[in-house]
């Protein structure tokens, strides 16, 4: 009577069936993500845009910079005066808007991905070094980041582009620099909180070198917030690149970047709504999709949300 044994076989019929083996972390994350309809839709839209970006050369009906001088400012096909060749109409110099939009997708996706990769890799390295080595290295790096964050991001991007000169590549570099502090801060915070954990100390005792500690042991555990920030960073990059394009400091005409298209369309506010509406709509849908996916990832990866 005094032993702590488990109940005998007879009452076992009372208990419900066993739950089964728990799912792997990746599977669990994917399940949570899928349940979030918004995020799922975002993912589908991104897949579609990616498809457009990769196949632009073959899908777009026209060359994006080819001008048709007989078809200036044609409205979309469903309106009066529309031309069935130019489904979404043409711009002021007779270029097919649909083709420009599709090539614009290629540009925007490249911009987003390039900026985030560049920014994230340098950000992770800097943040890792700051968080791991602490001391005056950390202070220096973080102070520099604070200074960079003292300026609103667009303004700093403008300043950098002012130095380097207008153009798509310079704009991308500028935006990457502007996003850098976010990754540095995030990485450093994650590293600092992981540093005190026992697996790091155990590794140290086992003789792991700095590089191994930083990139093999610690980094994988910090990836979740970084992935979320990266996804949201793509949408920021697309918005900022469009803003720079709009101001004439980013992608230069005749490149079909969506923001640049809007800068050329400004004067037609009263006359040709399609030249303004469609490029902006593309930006909105793309950014929205990445934001939805980023939010979904954040919810799926956040342990607190898991019931």
């Amino acid at each position: 009577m005094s032993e702590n044994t488990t109940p005998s076989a007879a009452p076992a019929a009372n208990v419900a069936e066993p739950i089964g083996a728990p799912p792997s972390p990746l599977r669990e994350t994917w399940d949570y993500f899928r349940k979030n309809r918004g995020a799922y839709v975002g993912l589908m839209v991104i897949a579609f845009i990616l498809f457009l970006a990769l196949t632009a050369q073959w899908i777009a009906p026209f060359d994006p910079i080819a001008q048709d001088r007989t078809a200036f400012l044609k409205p979309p096909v469903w309106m009066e005066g529309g031309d069935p060749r130019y489904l979404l109409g043409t711009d002021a110099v007779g270029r097919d808007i649909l083709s420009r939009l599709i090539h614009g997708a290629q540009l925007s996706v490249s911009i987003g991905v390039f900026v985030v990769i560049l920014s994230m890799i340098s950000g992770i390295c800097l943040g890792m070094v700051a968080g791991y080595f602490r001391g005056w290295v950390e202070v220096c790096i973080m102070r520099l980041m604070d200074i960079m964050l003292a300026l609103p991001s667009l303004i700093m991007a403008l300043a950098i582009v002012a130095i380097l000169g207008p153009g798509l590549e310079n704009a991308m570099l500028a935006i990457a620099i502007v996003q850098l502090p976010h990754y540095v801060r995030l990485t450093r915070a994650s590293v600092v909180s992981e540093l005190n954990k026992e697996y790091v100390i155990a590794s140290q005792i086992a003789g792991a070198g700095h590089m191994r500690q930083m990139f093999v042991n610690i980094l994988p555990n910090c990836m979740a917030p970084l992935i979320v920030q990266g996804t949201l960073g793509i949408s920021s990059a697309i918005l900022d690149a469009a803003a720079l394009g709009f101001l004439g400091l980013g992608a230069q005409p005749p490149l079909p970047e969506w923001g640049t298209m809007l800068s050329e369309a400004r004067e037609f506010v009263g006359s040709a709504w399609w030249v303004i509406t469609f490029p902006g709509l593309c930006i909105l849908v793309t950014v929205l999709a990445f934001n939805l996916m980023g939010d979904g990832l954040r919810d799926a990866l956040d342990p607190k949300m898991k019931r």
Partner: protein
Amino acid sequence: MALLEVQNLTVEFGSEDKPFRAVDSVSYSVDRGEVLGIVGESGSGKSVSSLAVMGLIDFPGRVTADALTFDGQDLLGMPAKRRREITGKDIAMIFQDPMSALNPCFTVEAQIMEALKVHEGGTKKQRRERTLELLNQVGIPDPKSRMTAYPHQLSGGMSQRIVIAMAIACKPRLLIADEPTTALDVTIQAQIIDLLLKLQEDSDMGLILITHDLALVSEAANRIQVMYAGQLFESGPADSIFAAPRHPYTQALLEALPERSEGHDRLRTIPGVVPGQYDRPTGCLLAPRCRYANESCITARPEVRDFNGRDVRCFYPLNDQGQPTGLTADMATGENV
């Protein structure tokens, strides 16, 4: 007529077809000046039943009862506004963690005066005087300086006294205390319980003391109610329950008290865990863990019956010697423990 009358209270969560019964057909009553102790492990539904009485169960929880009356008035059918007039004034409740029970943005006096303002009115001066009086009543030293303090500046024991002051501000006729001392240091625990009992005696208040601590309830309560996984297992006068428990669960709880393990090698425990939402046994809820359980316990669910003046939910309630009655030799499967 009893002050609080609860008959077949049920609180359900989850989907309509497969609901989770946090409280399952529980009945009890509390009289003026009576201390009822509700005892149970975590997940027993003891807190949830009181929240239902207070009207604090939100959607998607569903509260049903044959009767839920306070002073003869039906709480369930009452319009919300009227119920709010009773809540906090005639029935009050204090909760487990005093450190998080007070709004960090407002001072102590503001929070107590708010309760007074809503239910009793009066000028600011009157309310302030009453607040001072209350703080004295609950034993706060130098109340005048404490009045303008913010919650984060108070200790646990002090906070709980403030919470009690807030609860008794409008002279409630029934006070429900949900594990009021669990989050406090041991030395403070005794003080708080003494305070509650004194207040109860002075104003002839009904007091429901919810706790998992049997020792606590043995000294304080007039009647005790034992709950398990949402069901009522045993109910009766405190003295007799301690002297001769009728339900195997109560017996096991008493045996698990460290004082009663004198002379044994190990502390006696109840093996297994309280069933949660997904693993409710089909028969008696205690059967997987009960040392006297047999076939009939697994297949059918016992109802609450009167056994020698005690309400017990068991097929084989214990006699004065602690042995199950109605159990024939061939039915017993021997000890499970």
